[in-house]
């Protein structure tokens, strides 16, 4: 498994996105930038972003985009797109799950998005967010229906900072 771009991830297992935190003003960019968009600072530290957040806005891409979009191995199928508020930063992302259930403010969690086979045959992956309580495990595979996924959820809760940030983001109030 390889990342579609080495700059996107802090780690693939468990999946965490990488951000750039400005040493001067604290602004977090994604993917990490070389300069701060807010204060023009050039000292940015690479940080792991929260893997939980809330859906800030969304749509569905119903038609296949033109190149440089690259359809997955199985061909194009409509996909969700949104912005997810992680507290420190709001990131644009592919969305997994049924768009009929998408609602601004709903809790979301990070997942890997398999794209196409890499040169070694293993999947090239990007990131996506999916509804936090849709009964699937973090790798995106469906549960058998009986197990609840609280174990997987608890597994990410050890990063209290990240989850706290995501909770702050729930209000979305600052952006009206």
């Amino acid at each position, binding site marked *: 498994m390889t990342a579609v771009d080495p700059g996107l991830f802090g780690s693939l297992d468990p999946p965490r996105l990488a951000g750039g935190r400005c040493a001067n003003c604290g602004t977090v960019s994604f993917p990490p930038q070389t300069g701060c968009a807010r204060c023009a600072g050039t000292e940015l530290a690479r940080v792991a972003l929260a893997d939980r957040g809330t859906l800030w806005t969304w749509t569905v891409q119903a038609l296949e*985009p*033109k190149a440089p979009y690259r359809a997955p191995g199985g061909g194009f199928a409509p996909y969700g797109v949104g912005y997810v508020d992680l507290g420190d930063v709001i990131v*644009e992302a592919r969305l997994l799950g049924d768009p009929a259930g998408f609602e601004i403010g709903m809790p979301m969690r990070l997942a890997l998005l398999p794209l196409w086979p890499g040169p070694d045959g293993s999947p090239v992956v990007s990131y996506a967010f999916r509804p936090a309580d849709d009964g699937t495990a973090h790798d995106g595979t469906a549960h058998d229906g009986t197990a609840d996924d609280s174990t997987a959820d608890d597994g990410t809760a050890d990063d209290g900072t990240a989850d706290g940030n995501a909770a702050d983001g729930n209000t979305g109030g600052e952006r009206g």
Partner: protein
Amino acid sequence: MSGARVEVCVIGVGLHPFGRHDPALTGMAMGAKASRLALADAGVSWADIGYAVGGSNVSGKPDSLVGVLGLTGVPFVNVRNGCATAGVALATAANAIRAGETDLALVVGFDKHERGAFAASPADYGHADWYGETGLMVTTQFFAMKDRRYLHAHGLSDRLLGQVAAKAFRCGALNPDAWRRKALTADEIMRARMINPPLTQYMLCSPSEGAAAVVLARGDRAADLCEHPVRLAAVAKRTRRFGSFEVFAPWLPPQAGESASVDAARAAFASAELSPADVQVAQLQDTDAGAEIYHMAETGLCADGAQQELIDRGETAPDGRLPVNTDGGCLANGEPVGASGLRQVIDIVLQLQGRAGARQVPGRPRVGFTHVYGAPGISACTVLTVQGLTA
């Protein structure tokens, strides 16, 4: 201050109608046609033009037009600023007149886009390949997501999108130069094929083909050359600031900021010494129906959330209190990117001159406004007034 400033006026306009044309007709040929129409409308010749500015996104280098218009040695600046190209071109030419480089300038924009949505290169916008390959770099996605967020935040209904598009096609039906001239009801628009929810196919502008040109003159010459010169009271352009929600953005900060449109509109009104309340006819970037809705507020023409009542009352129709996009806007004309902002200026000029035909706003408006917005977060606005109007 304003007494000392050099006045700039529009004294001629020319439009090669937007739409789908003969595949053999190039963007540049349409640009030449629009330029000649504008020169004829102004009653001047190409040899009189002392400065030219041209914009095209995909259809060649505009200064190549000198090969067909005439090799007069005229200085010619090329502009390529996305959907804001024409606004930036207009500002560049106006500033050349203010700087004393010329009395007469020509501004031309043209483009001939292929069918279907725009395809953008990540590298052109400073992004890595993954952003395009994974299907995030699609302008219509941004339109849909900004619309949804805006409507949600201000308690507006999705139905407003259908109402705005229906108004655009009603205006298109009144405009002999429009591409889409068939009126559609809001219901028909709401039920049409979904492209990027909440946007259906009729709520999104299509890339098209066409050209537009205007001739600008220094104020003291304008009165001699034109019966009803329209004063370019202000033209302002801005790029985005921190915190604004713009197209092609992989991330946003949690702190909201104002868009480039807010800044450009504010600067234009300040420079014109007029306020949004003075505007009697407006052109707003409507690359999708929702864009017209939030641009009404971003440019200061109404408060956030006030759009529902204004549109329900028909105030943005040609016979309303604040007519918006009376030629059908981008929705009914499509968007040849390099020309689109000049189409807006031409519609306002015709309205202020009383030459807008079936879509003429009643009561001879005296103050007009135009606004373009483009990727990756740039806006240009103009304030146009009947010459002689004092603030």
